[in-house]
């Protein structure tokens, strides 16, 4: 970026995210919808992520030390509050696939000293390995704790020959000292975009999906471009009345009275209404404006 460029595009560079209709005129804004009612917690997506993104297997000792490198993890909860209340989990377990939420106003981006993590024009929270100096400030500030640091030089040990032949040439094999995280399979997006560009069109809905979405046996993970209002994911966002640039959704204000702090802490939540929409974003109230909408799990209380 030359100085001239910097000065002439200052207002664009200083854009406050998110804004209403921010992506109205841009071709892409990648986003997800994850249906927690369909998610069975089977781990197909996490393995697909290992395969697609050259994630190293760290081994027992390093996993024990909390140095696992799973960009996408499946969490399993037994309850919502602070205390376990049931003797047996009568409604099963609650599974949550958690990966980088590609926040529009990402806490990691503002604190990275070197700008190694920044926002791309198509709404991704990118990570530039070459630029990263490994201060780990981004991870410290991530509310979701979905950033993974290369504590060791994994290429030395993770792929004993000939396992390294499996490594995708489209994805950097990260060396020690850099931060990494879910990229929404940016290599797939890049390939699809460049293909579309040579054909002088935009990427079509369904033309490209992330590895996790492609693998998911129950189609719980939906990936697409919400700048394209005709895409499935855009329709799902709309149907769920989730607005990208809102830190509290209108439908929630309509349905809930503000819960008292004590209620939030004890997991009681808000008052119950007759019918609700299922879409929500995790930690929306922190104003991170995530790009991943989760759809609430459903459990029938009939039995």
């Amino acid at each position: 970026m030359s100085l001239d460029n910097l000065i002439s595009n200052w207002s664009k560079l200083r854009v406050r995210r998110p804004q209403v209709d921010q992506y109205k005129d841009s071709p892409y804004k990648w986003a997800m919808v994850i249906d927690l009612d369909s998610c069975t917690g089977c781990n197909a997506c996490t393995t697909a992520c290992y395969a697609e993104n050259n994630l190293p297997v760290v081994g027992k000792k390093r996993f024990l030390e909390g140095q696992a490198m799973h960009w996408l993890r499946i969490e399993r909860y037994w309850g919502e509050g602070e205390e376990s209340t049931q003797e047996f989990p009568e409604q099963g377990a609650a599974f949550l696939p958690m990966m980088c939420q590609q926040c529009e106003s990402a806490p990691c981006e503002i604190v990275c000293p070197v700008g190694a993590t920044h926002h791309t024009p198509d709404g991704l929270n990118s990570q530039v390995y070459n630029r990263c100096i490994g201060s780990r400030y981004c991870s410290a500030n991530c509310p979701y704790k979905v950033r993974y640091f290369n504590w060791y030089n994994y290429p030395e040990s993770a792929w004993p020959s000939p396992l390294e032949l499996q490594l995708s040439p489209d994805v950097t094999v990260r060396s020690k000292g850099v931060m990494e995280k879910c990229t929404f399979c940016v290599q797939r997006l890049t390939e699809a975009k460049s293909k579309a560009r040579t054909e002088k069109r935009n990427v079509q809905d369904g033309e490209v999906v992330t590895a996790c979405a492609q693998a998911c046996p129950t189609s719980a993970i939906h990936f697409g471009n919400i700048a394209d209002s005709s895409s499935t994911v855009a329709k799902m966002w709309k149907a769920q009345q989730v607005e990208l640039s809102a830190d509290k959704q209108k439908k929630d204000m309509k349905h809930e009275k503000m819960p008292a702090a004590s209620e939030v802490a004890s997991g009681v939540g808000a008052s119950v209404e007759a019918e609700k929409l299922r879409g929500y974003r995790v930690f929306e109230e922190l104003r991170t404006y995530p790009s991943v909408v989760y759809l609430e799990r459903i459990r029938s209380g009939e039995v």
Partner: protein
Amino acid sequence: MSTVVEELDSIGERRFEPKAKDINEDIAWAKINTDVLRSLERPRPIFWVIFLSAVALFGVGVACEIYQYKTGLGVAELRNPHVWGLYISTFIFWIGMSHSGTLLSAILHIMHADWRKPIYRFAEAMTTFSLMTAGLFVLVHLGRVWQFYYVVAYPNERWTWPNFSSPLVWDATAIGSYLTTSVIFLYFGMIPDLAICRDSATGFRRTFYRLLSVGWQGTDRQWSNFRITYLTIACLLIPLAVSVHSIVATDFAVSQQPGWHTTSFPPYFVAGALYSGCAAIITLFIILRHTFRFEEYMTIPILEKLCKLTFAISMVWTYLNLIEYASTWYGTDVYAKQALIYRATGIYRYWWWAMNFLGSVVPFALAFKALRTHVPTMMVVSLLLNLGMWIERFMIVTPTFAHGYYPWTWSDVWWPNWIQIGIVAGSFGWFTLLFMLFCKIFPSVSMYEVKEMVYHRIRARK
């Protein structure tokens, strides 16, 4: 600050006894030179023992760092979510230590508190060396230290800049400026004394001091330029000192994490910094007084003033600490409240209670004249206070990682391992060896300012 001290001073004077003198005002100027220059003579064997121990300790740190550098930060058992560990805690500790040198040399200087004069020199040296130590931690902590210069806004053909919205960039800038200014201030304030050294040294030492004293002759013109420059740097240094620790505080306050995201952090950090710095000065004061037989310069009344100052700052710190607890407890941020409760009841609870005890209760020892004039007690108390302040930094950093927003990554098992402890120990070795070298090469008591002090006091008496 000095008003408070003097107020406390006068209370003591009225109630108990005639005011003890800060310094023997009838001391001969030649004796001052002799006494101070004596500290630069050939050291006793015990010096070498301690010095080599410090070098060995530093060597342990270097060995750990080399291992960590070669293998990766994982060997330090840094992990998700404990991504920072002791390195950042100890970094804050050393940055905090650096503040009191500035307090004594610059703030008290422009406030004309002349009792600072015999003791500010080593405090200023402490500032510089603890900053140099703190800087090491920034490097030790980086994943790719070989590319640390990315944080500096240097011109390059790609026009890539650091991210100016990141507090780490402010940090790098502020610490860099503060270190530079501190070094200049320390050196500049020493020039008249270096000239005295030059005049009494022989051989290569004379050459060394001659080069350093840059032709100081003590002319009126030199003195007048010296005074103005010294004052100017002092004025520059004060905002820098305040900003450095405020910025270190913003490393936490700008982030969103529960327990860190607090507007009171900058003043809280500055108070904590001055607090730990003053406690460190008391420690070094006692050591130097004993080692170099500086009883006539580092007198008990000065120690008392220092103790009173420390006590005042400790109460400011306690107040800010309580404000933080109260605002979290009564506030609406449930996450922050959970984090606070975790600090008091989680696996780090003993440390949390120790920090509150050492930081807020132990300083009351300074309020009692009998205790604060008892040198061994003060040695112990000052060390305890510094321990408390080190724990404070640990308690700021670690529990938030252990118990942040995201319950899935809550961790109940993290303690620093031997690599981290080795590097932290190495930093103490590094600081000690720098400080010992300084005391043997440069006059650790400002000769010309003690003379000034004596001169002015005699004039005032008359």
